[in-house]
């Protein structure tokens, strides 16, 4: 692969860059975005067909074309993700997570996420919204205060198609050319 000082032109391994692009936008990107949303990772990068794609958390998916140069055009300030739910402690005490409180698990609104033990009296922690558990912020047995954030629930696939299309177009060789 050759260096490109401008960082704008791709240096694909294959003859027709558009072949890789189709696969990228239709299969790879959506899968990556879903995985990123479900997981704890803040950033993902994949190389395929001479493309390097880097995705950053917070709903901003940035596809970059600087394959060999190593430059990556991260998006501007990422847009706010909609309807992100934070499960908070209902009391001061010791936290014990429910079995379903695992990153990547899908939960419904009001599903139990765990309990807080206040002098032997148990208070339930429930999911504020439905979605995917994206962050778990307290461990079993940890002392928590009232209102403390215990877990973050991200909404299920909020129309990311538009987002990924846009990201792919922005980073496509055609757009860059």
């Amino acid at each position, binding site marked *: 692969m050759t260096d490109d000082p401008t960082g704008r032109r791709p240096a694909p391994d294959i003859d027709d860059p558009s072949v890789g692009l189709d696969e990228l936008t239709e299969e790879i990107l959506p899968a990556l975005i879903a995985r990123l949303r479900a997981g704890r990772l803040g950033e993902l990068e994949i190389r395929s067909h001479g493309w390097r794609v880097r995705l950053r958390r917070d709903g901003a998916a940035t596809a970059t074309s600087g394959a060999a140069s190593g430059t990556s055009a991260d998006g501007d300030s990422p847009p706010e993700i909609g309807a992100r739910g934070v499960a908070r402690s209902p009391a*001061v005490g010791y936290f014990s997570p429910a079995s379903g409180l695992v990153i990547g698990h899908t939960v419904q609104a009001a599903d139990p996420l765990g309990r807080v033990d206040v002098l032997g009296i148990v208070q339930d922690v429930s999911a504020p919204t439905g979605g995917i558990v994206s962050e778990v912020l307290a461990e079993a047995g940890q002392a928590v205060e009232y209102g403390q954030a215990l877990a973050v629930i991200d909404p299920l696939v909020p129309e990311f198609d538009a987002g990924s299309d846009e990201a792919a177009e922005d980073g496509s060789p055609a757009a860059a050319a």
Partner: protein
Amino acid sequence: MVERVLIANRGEIAVRVLRACRSMGLEAVVAPSEADRESRAVLMADESICIGPAESARSYLSTASVISAALVSGCDAIHPGYGFLSEDDGFAEMTRAHDLTFIGPSAEVLERFASKAGTRELLAGHGLPMVPGSDGMLRDDEHALSEAARIGYPLLIKPSAGGGGKGMRMVRTPRELQQALTVCRSEARAAFGDDSLYLEKWLERTRHVEVQVIVDNYGSGVHVGERDCSVQRRHQKIVEEAPSPAIDDTTRVELAEAAVRAAVAAGYQNVGTLEFLVDGEGRYYFIEINARIQVEHPVTEMLSGIDIVAEQIRLASGEPLGYGQDAVRLRGHAIEFRINAEDVKGDFQPQAGVVERYVPPGGAGIRMETHLYSGYDVPPYYDSLLGKLIVWGPDRDSAIARSRVALRELLVEGIETNIPFHRAIVEDQTFLSGDFDTNLLDRKGAAAFLSALPTDDAA
């Protein structure tokens, strides 16, 4: 000695307790409600742990939340401050059951002094004179009327639980009594969860004088003199001073000694205050005991040099008092002004909102006890006390002169406060004379005080 104290209170007293802990080399954890996360005590503390929402019943009054907070934050003691859970014997008992030290009297002592009527009976047995009153709690209206006829009008209806003027009414006739009973019962029930009432003879022209006592767990106790809290508005103390300008030195010593003798004999422990009414002839009558630190305790600290909060902590840890009455020396005169977030021109309605600017006064003998800071957002959920200005001088006149200066310097901008009212009080001829009773403010009226002020001050 305890090592790590959970401060289960808010406002200025949380700051006061935090300072006492630090000066004793103890760690302290502040336990705020959600509405007090930005309070001064929390900002000052090394550690804080939120115990519940703004609503007191689910935070500062929640026994389980407060004790849980102490346990999970690794504390070995709880300081309850004043109000909230400070005199709750059930809370003290539960604190002890979790191997935590309650900084105050033991659960047994709190229980013994929980009922005002029971306390009066107990302390009458140890030589304290009582205001003539009903024989125990009022069973019903009929009982109230017959007791009232026996004692004679005018009368004061008082709730057995609580304080602060709630559920209290003065009545002059049987008809007024009957009407007021219903109101007092519901007020007392709403405020304290207990609607038992009793009657007391209304003494005309009385002063409110209280005696500070410090008693260890082994039967040794001292008094730290008296405080005069006669400047009241609707039974709420506004200005307190010591020594009382109303009693002579013979009565002063007799009263204080009688108070501490009775408290020790009745088995009282830790820091406490015995409240008395003093009539025009200097006769005193016991009314109630406050088994906790009081808002006006700094007045006594200024005269004695004793850190009363530190004494609470020390004695609750089981240490002996370690000094006798001879070691307690009272010097000079001190006055405390309660700074409240109130609209003095709007019937003293409590205020909330952002304090745009706070500038404390300074100088010789000046002390501010407050949780104020510039930018502080006063929450609407709690009482209106913003702090206290305490002024010491070698005598009453010099303390008043310094008070005038300090009240001019003290700036609280952004919300209405009663500072203009205090400026008016220190110019009032009756206050200056020292010859007044607890009815001074209500009889004269706030408007009359304020109109006496120079116009720029009354604004």
